[in-house]
């Protein structure tokens, strides 16, 4: 019993880091632009396909493709920003919901039309097998994914607190009008935030693919989890996202092990509602 508990704490912590990384891009976009991007999960799904195809054609491990997919997705983010998001920032929430849900449906069905519903998994991946720490089995793919998640979060934290652009992003996030008055090009900040958010999705997708498969419906799972984490974290910076991810991962793993896998979404949402009830601004919200 103790072993099972330990094992699933580890499972939960590792997955929690991955969940946090997936949600990080959304948190950044939501925090800076106050925009509700319902297509986030579909972005993850498209990035996962990109990882699959690049890995297949260049014959490189999926984890390495993150170096290619992240920049591509930064550009993808800029393009989506220009085409869709730029036009709806600051408008009525309804317009934002309509536009991003439209984007979600469009991307999902394009994926379905282009790639059919069959699951695709990486053919070349170096991150296989597991290491044993006493009674606990740690899958190498998830361990690496968790490590990369934490590294990415540290890098983003450094970027947001130590660089000029990062400071400008945070200023925009805190008070858009004041930032604009101080000479910050708010629109440019929006574009950077959106592109950066997408680049993080690219990194996350590459490491998810080391243990998962992608199909056109995959966006649903990742989108939902990301939303719960972002709202749970509140607008409290990188650490809030990480802790929310960890809470979710551990709760999910323990719930699946000690109760019923079918109830995992119900438990996650109950937790979510409970937290919003007790702390309406999220666990780590600053404002």
């Amino acid at each position, binding site marked *: 019993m103790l072993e099972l508990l330990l094992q699933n704490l580890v*499972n939960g912590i590792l997955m929690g880091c991955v969940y946090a990384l997936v949600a990080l891009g959304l948190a950044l976009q939501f925090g800076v632009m106050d925009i509700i991007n319902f297509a986030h999960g579909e972005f993850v799904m498209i990035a996962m396909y990109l990882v699959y195809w690049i890995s297949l054609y260049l014959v490189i491990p999926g984890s390495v493709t993150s170096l290619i997919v992240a920049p591509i997705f930064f550009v993808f983010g800029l393009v989506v920003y220009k085409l869709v998001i730029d036009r709806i920032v600051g408008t009525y929430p309804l317009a934002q919901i309509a536009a991003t849900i439209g984007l979600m449906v469009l991307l999902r069905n394009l994926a379905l039309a282009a790639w059919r519903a069959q699951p695709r998994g990486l053919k070349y991946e170096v991150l296989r097998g597991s290491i044993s720490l006493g009674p606990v089995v740690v899958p190498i793919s998830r361990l690496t994914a968790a490590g990369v998640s934490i590294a990415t979060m540290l890098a983003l934290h450094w970027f947001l607190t130590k660089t000029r652009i990062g400071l400008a992003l945070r200023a925009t996030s805190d008070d858009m009008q004041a930032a604009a008055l101080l000479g910050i090009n708010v629109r440019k900040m929006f574009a950077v935030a959106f592109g950066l958010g997408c680049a993080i999705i690219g990194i996350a997708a590459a490491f998810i693919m080391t243990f*998962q498969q992608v199909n056109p419906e995959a966006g649903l799972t990742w989108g939902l989890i990301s939303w719960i984490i972002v709202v749970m974290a509140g607008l409290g910076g990188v650490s809030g996202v990480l802790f929310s991810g960890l809470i979710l991962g551990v709760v999910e793993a323990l719930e699946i092990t000690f109760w019923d896998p079918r109830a995992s979404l119900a438990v996650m949402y109950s937790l979510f509602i409970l937290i919003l009830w007790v702390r309406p601004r999220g666990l780590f919200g600053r404002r």
Partner: protein
Amino acid sequence: MRRRLAVGRVVLVGALIVIILIAVVAAFYLRKPAPTPAPTTAAPGPTETQPPKPVIEEIVIGMVEPLSGTHAIFGIEAKQAAELVIEDINARGGIQSLGGAKLKLVVADSKDSIEGAKLAAEELISKHHPVVIIGAYISRHTAAMAEVTEREKVILVADALVDFLSERGWKYFFRACPKTSIHGKTAMDFVYETAKKKGIEIETVAIINEDSVFGRYTALGAYHEALTLGLTVVEHIEYPYDIADASPIVSKLIEANPDVVISVPYFSDGVLIATTMEEMGFKPMIVAGAGGCGYCDPDSIAAAGSAVEGFTQTYSYNPFLDTPYNKEIVQKFQERYGKLPTEAGGIIFYSLWTIKEALELAGQMFPDDPLNPDNLRQAFLALDITSGPAAETYPSGHIKFNENGDNIYAMAVVLQVQNGEPVLVYPFEYAQAEPIFPIPGYSP
């Protein structure tokens, strides 16, 4: 200024939505009349009960399959198989007892939804007057469709597997393919008999299934059989098929440490579970899949690689069955579509040939009114197929319906992934190869 701009955008977005809506509605209506029926000259509707010796030139067979959406991959294969078989039946002279009447296939999309399947059946019946409808792959879609076919008295030949379809007392319902509990039972029997043959004792079983009605019925079939065989079920886990991570489930299996695992995967969850088992180093004697799709699908083997080596899966159809007609149709299918027919296509092979046999028999039994639904039903019930293409493509080679519309000789086959290829291993008398048991890497 800013305010006005914002309003302008809202108007723009609104206008866009309206334009898209108009385009969608227009596309729907423009597309709709395209296959307008003009049901050909001599085909009499099934409801006209007393025409004197009708001259039947063409008999419409309706088909409802998910041609779009998540399950399109199955629906499209079913459609491909149906087109091939209908061509084949017509090329062999159509329905001889009805003066060589030709079959005409009309396919409708269930849009991968319950309502869609129902609508598709309604539309097929009102426009094309089929005597038989085949479909709709997904059991709950089929159940919805049966409401229509029962009301309109059209024979429904189901290619969906869940048990409850034949438990509702439907009159015009037939199902040649093995239902889910037969799949679960076959998986358990295969493991038990293989172990016995190899002189290995198994005592404990873990059963995992995705939590749809399909997964549960299949798992219960295996569960029941395990208890019948005197085995202990040490763990039974049901999970949602879209789980993000399988490691908690695999940890639970490691803790339970069963001799064998019976698994009912849905689609991509099977790949996830197999790769997670490999990663976490969990190797029971065998992981035996049940339920018609999963570990031995070419797509799964491509996605999971070495992780599914040695895994088995039950299927309702056996593409490697060594009979003349099966070899012929598999070769034709491969030539035309460039792939091996799987479950979705295989069920259609024997189901359509069964319909053909029923029509032949109806022509002999009721020469005056062969297409009357009640007469056709009698013909279906009188069938006892042991030879010909239907038998040669069916796992047990024998099709005979009971009052519920189920095949009393229903049977599933078991394939195993051996060196990255799906190979037929059970029933032993048809097997292409010896089952590998325990699978490589097993350590007691």
